[in-house]
């Protein structure tokens, strides 16, 4: 066994970095489900779209422009999806929603293939994020530190908006009892529409952030879907804190599983999922009430 402290610090940072990437991805999905009770399996496809938009924008105007514009573009796709499908499917039950959004994955996948081709694309990291930083006594890639910081910023921002602002209060009211909220003069439909767009933008953001780390290829949406769903099931579907807890648990189990028991690493996370489903089917950190 390796006794060097730096090794374990590095692995903990790896775990944190993976957790934050998964958090960015799953938070959009949890927020949409938590507030709208809508299962959007096409979320992974929006993440892939984010990465593709980023690759195109970055080729023209550089990475920072991509970081800003790609989530906006994905939110735009979200608007189309909402007015085309989601609005009509709101009341039609989870089975129909799962089927339609699962189909959407393949439609979007083939559209990315038609537009961007089959060859994987790449985004270069801007120079200031390119090197390595000394963190806690170890050298760690700056870009990964950036992902961790960005994840924490998004978490802080969402916690603030949901917990401390008027809009946050309206959203929480809509979740608790949408009819009563509507009686009080809140336009619940419009609120949900905004929430959906923000959720899509977050998926796009996750795509941009993941793109320089991974490769931008048509199948990235399918690769990420299962980990995201596992995060949500482990955390318990509802608001923010649970999404974070699920992502952290996934990140640490996956990373330390790969180090300590490489033969089991791909099974461990499913074992955890099964254990959670058997022992606490509502998720480890269920919504109160």
């Amino acid at each position, binding site marked *: 066994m390796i006794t060097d402290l730096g090794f374990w610090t590095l692995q903990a940072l790896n775990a944190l970095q993976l957790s934050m990437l998964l958090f960015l991805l799953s938070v959009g999905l949890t927020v949409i489900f938590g507030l709208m009770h809508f299962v959007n399996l096409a979320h992974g496809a929006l993440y892939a779209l984010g990465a593709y938009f980023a690759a195109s924008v970055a080729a023209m105007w550089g990475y920072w422009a991509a970081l800003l514009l790609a989530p906006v573009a994905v939110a735009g796709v979200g608007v189309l999806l909402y007015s085309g499908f989601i609005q009509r499917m709101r009341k039609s039950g989870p089975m129909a929603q799962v089927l339609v959004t699962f189909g959407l994955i393949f439609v979007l996948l083939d559209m990315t293939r038609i537009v961007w081709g089959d060859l*994987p694309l790449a985004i270069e990291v801007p120079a200031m994020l390119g090197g390595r930083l000394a963190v806690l006594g170890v050298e760690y890639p700056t870009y*990964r530190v950036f992902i961790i910081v960005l994840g924490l910023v998004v978490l802080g921002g969402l916690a603030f908006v949901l917990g401390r602002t008027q809009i946050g209060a309206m959203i929480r009211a809509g979740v608790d009892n949408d009819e009563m909220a509507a009686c009080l003069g809140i336009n619940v439909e419009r609120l949900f529409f905004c929430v959906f767009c923000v959720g899509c933008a977050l998926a796009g953001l996750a795509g941009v952030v993941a793109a320089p780390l991974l490769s931008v290829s048509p199948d990235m949406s399918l690769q990420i879907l299962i980990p995201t769903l596992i995060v949500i099931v482990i955390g318990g579907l509802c608001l923010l804190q649970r999404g974070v807890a699920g992502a952290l648990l996934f990140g640490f189990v996956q990373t330390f599983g*790969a180090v300590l028991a490489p033969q089991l690493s*791909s099974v461990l996370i499913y074992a955890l999922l099964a254990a959670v489903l058997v022992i606490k089917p509502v998720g480890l950190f269920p919504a109160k009430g």
Partner: protein
Amino acid sequence: MKTTTLAALGLATTIATTATAEDIRVGLLLPYSGVYAALGNEIDAGFELGLEQFGSETDATFEIVREDTEVKPPVALGKAKKLILQENVDVIAGIVSSGVLGAVRDMVHGAAVPLIVANAGNDGATGADCSPFITRMSFSNGQVNRPMGTWMYEQGVRKVYTLAPDYAAGRQMIDAFEATFTAAGGEIVGQDFTPFQKTQDFGPYLTHAKSSGADAVYVFYAGGEAISFVKQYDSFGLKPELPLYGSGFLTSSLYVNAQGPAAEGVIAVSHYVPTIENDANAKFVDGFTANVGRAPSEFAVQGYDAARALIEATKAGATDRASLANALRQVTFDGPRGTLSIDPATNNIVQPIYTYETVARADGLTQKVLAQLPSEADPANGCVMDPVSN
């Protein structure tokens, strides 16, 4: 009356067969959708170019029927049946995934239809599962990696850490390398097999490799995983202290530009790179660049040589399934990869292997050939086959 009609019919069929004998129907069985669509299109472009450049050398004409395997073995089996029974093809070429090859193997073997494998590298396909009807013009997993173990030891590398995805090809590639490297006197100080197509973050494995005390890391990754791996390896700053070596697919010319500067200095072993210097390769690279707009990859040359093998077989007088299968086993020519031949004991290709370094030039990344390693036929691996009949 009835007998006469039947006899007439029989005669008509015979005449029909003779009349179209010079027209060879070729079934291209490739993934045009799914995760390997890029490879399918690359092989297809190579195959087309091969017919275009060498088609005039033979009297035969070729008619191509394309079917999409979708990289799904059951789908591919259905498509192979369609090509054989309905389209009545004389020969099938293609097959990217070894899973697909395993699925169609019994079908083509049973129907006695010649199959030219243009990618799938599973050692077993020209080992225990070999067939006189299946000729491989691409490579076998072991063949590409075996010479690298000895070569790296000669370069002074003594301790190696290996990484590969956890599936048959990953294990065959690493095993072949490990066998020759340890036989030469080297030591494998650690290895990991990462979950295939489920690993997005290689950070944990890279940290592990770094602390293993190895002189170098030897890996096999392909496609999207290769891009993620090379970029993440570079971002951890491992390259200066722990040079990265790999099976050639790691920095294939097909996607090396997506890896960018991260791929610089990576040394890999392959059966083809577009910078091999010979006349046949110059002709191939020029033709491919004119058609597609970029340099060809090892996948393109496999399609190109598959078409060339078919043309050589018809030049030897082959006209139908049986004669084509027999002629394909005796094909030999000088192509972009050097002198190629088919080992009649296994029907696998015998070809030189190249080690190369990815280097930056003004117009992007390119491959600098370091050494040409001699051609070696694979061991029979349990393959028992009738000798070639003349």
